[in-house]
């Protein structure tokens, strides 16, 4: 028990240090811009006195350490500053844009897991055969193609030429603001409102971006599943199960797979976090009003508060998911307790 408390304490300490590191990196990103934020605010031709006064108002005349502590203080109070572009507080902007990204990434990780894990198991069972090689090539191809190329190609073929997929965006103009805002996840909101037409529309708009993101992240899931399964299939308990005369399916799914499932939790958590990155590019192609879109639009306009805020949020989610994976792993696998 004491040992567990000790490891918990050191774990918390390392998270605290990582968070501090996140704060330092984002602080530096916000400060090293080539444009002087004061001049950006008042203009190049402002008199010296105005520049000085604005600099003092923005707190930029104080020592860098004081500025950093102020930044930490604001972070601790959930204050990420204001966006120059939208004139809103960055936190409220993020609250509005993040659900769209969350919806996209969650659906994508589900699809990737449902397709990728069985593929990985299949590849491991048929190691070295044509099936194994084919799965490897298909997955590597998905991982080697930038999502924006896939996204543009998909829009060209399924939207422009075949006309069977909806165009960019998250919903048709007809359904804009028709469903009451509850969670920000359009599918869930439509379900709550019982508006099945809106639900169908939201799902139809999700198909392309979700499949593309899922294909991109499937490679990692499949590769890890295959490696873990090969490991498990060489275990003595699998040999025993085979010797007992169990069928191949039972050996693979009842004996080998449960041991792999636990290790896959970590892989899925990492994939989920990685999807946030793919989402940035996908969103710009599909005009998806999510965090990635917000981040890139702010980047184009050198609007640094939203950039820092969005980067910080993604970093936090990343650290949080890693931590969650670690905890789940410990909880689910008695061997590492």
């Amino acid at each position, binding site marked *: 028990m004491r040992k567990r408390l000790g490891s918990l304490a050191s774990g918390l300490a*390392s998270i605290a*240090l*990582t968070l501090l*590191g*996140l704060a*330092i*990196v*984002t602080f*530096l*990103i*916000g400060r*090293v*811009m*080539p444009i002087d934020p004061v001049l950006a605010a008042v203009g190049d031709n402002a008199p010296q006195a105005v520049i000085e006064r604005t600099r003092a108002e923005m707190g930029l005349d104080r020592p860098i350490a004081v500025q950093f502590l102020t930044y930490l203080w604001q972070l601790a109070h959930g204050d990420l500053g204001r966006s120059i572009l939208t004139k809103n507080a960055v936190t409220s902007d993020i609250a509005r844009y993040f659900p769209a990204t969350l919806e996209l990434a969650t659906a994508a990780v589900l699809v990737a897991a449902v397709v990728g894990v069985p593929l990985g198991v299949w590849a491991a069972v048929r190691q070295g055969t044509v099936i194994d*090689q084919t799965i*490897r*090539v298909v997955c*590597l*191809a998905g*991982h*080697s*193609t*930038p*999502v*924006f*190329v896939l996204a*543009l*190609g998909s*829009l*060209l073929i399924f939207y*422009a030429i075949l006309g069977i997929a909806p165009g960019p965006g998250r919903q048709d103009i007809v359904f804009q603001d028709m469903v009451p805002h509850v969670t920000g996840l359009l599918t869930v909101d439509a379900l709550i409102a019982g508006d099945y037409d809106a639900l169908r529309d939201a799902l139809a708009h999700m198909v392309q971006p979700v499949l593309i993101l899922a294909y991109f992240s499937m490679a990692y899931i499949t590769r890890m599943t295959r*490696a873990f399964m*090969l490991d498990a299939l060489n275990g003595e308990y699998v040999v025993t199960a085979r010797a007992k005369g169990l069928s191949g399916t039972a050996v693979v799914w009842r004996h080998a797979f449960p041991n792999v499932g636990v290790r896959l939790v970590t892989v899925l958590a990492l994939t989920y*976090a*990685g999807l*946030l*990155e793919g989402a*940035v*590019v996908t969103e*710009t*192609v599909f005009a998806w009003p999510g965090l990635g879109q917000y*981040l*890139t639009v702010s*980047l*184009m306009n*050198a609007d*640094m508060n939203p*950039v*820092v805020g*969005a*980067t910080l949020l*993604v*970093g936090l989610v*990343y*650290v949080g998911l*890693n931590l969650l994976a670690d905890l789940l792993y410990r909880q689910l696998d008695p061997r590492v307790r």
Partner: protein
Amino acid sequence: MSVAFTRDWLLAETPASRAQAAWGRRYRAWLGLRANPLAMIGLAVVVAFVLLALAASLLATHDPGAQDLANRLARPSAAHWLGTDELGRDIYSRILHGGRVTLGMVIAVVVLVAPLGLAVGCVAGYFGGLVDRVLMRVTDVFLAFPRLILALAFVAALKPGVESAILAIALTAWPPYARLARAETMTVRNSDFIAACRLTGAAPARIVLRHVAPLCVPSLVVRITLDMSSIIITAASLGFLGMGAQPPSPEWGAMIATAKRFIFEQWWVPTGPGIAIMLASLAFNFLGDGLRDVLDPKQR
């Protein structure tokens, strides 16, 4: 010393010299790689990619910057093999020259990142203790961001352009190498031959440089090869988002970014660079996958 690179000399069970042993090991790795068709395809495409990039100005049919406004967005033809873009520039020639930009970025990132990651990892792993903890904490912070997002933020803070993109990708690319080198170092740190080195009075710097670091190189090479595709994709994504190479430059991602406006009417404009990115990164993935099987059998 005269050396005959015959098959028997290379595959000798009892090498007579260090050189023979080293070449024998390389030859066996090559034989293993040659048996893997995917890896050979990857290698061929990578070699072709490098050669095409180097010989771009010889092979290009047009000046990649020459505009011909009378002949904008032309379909592929005998004069313009892959058509022309929105300023009448020849797409085929631009893709060739874009290969130079991409190759240059990839090489610059690797040259910056590999020694840094190796140094940090070996030092942390060999010395352990406080040094290890501090270095690994820094590594973790950089690992706590998805690569593209951190790179985007860095580029925005610096100034969009090729140099910033290289720097930003490098800043986000070194931590996995450091992790890997550290893990490798920890496995050899307490082995007998390192203890023997220490007993003969070798300085820590010498042990790390001459005895520990070389052992980390094979797994690092595998990792770098696999990472090349990720670097290519990140560079192209930065270009696509307008944060990497800037428009007159024929960088593939930037070419697609400008071409996406007329993708529905003139689909051939973005298709060429898209296929180029895909081929280049797929080739590195195939090659890296094969190299991993040969150089790092325990990770298979």
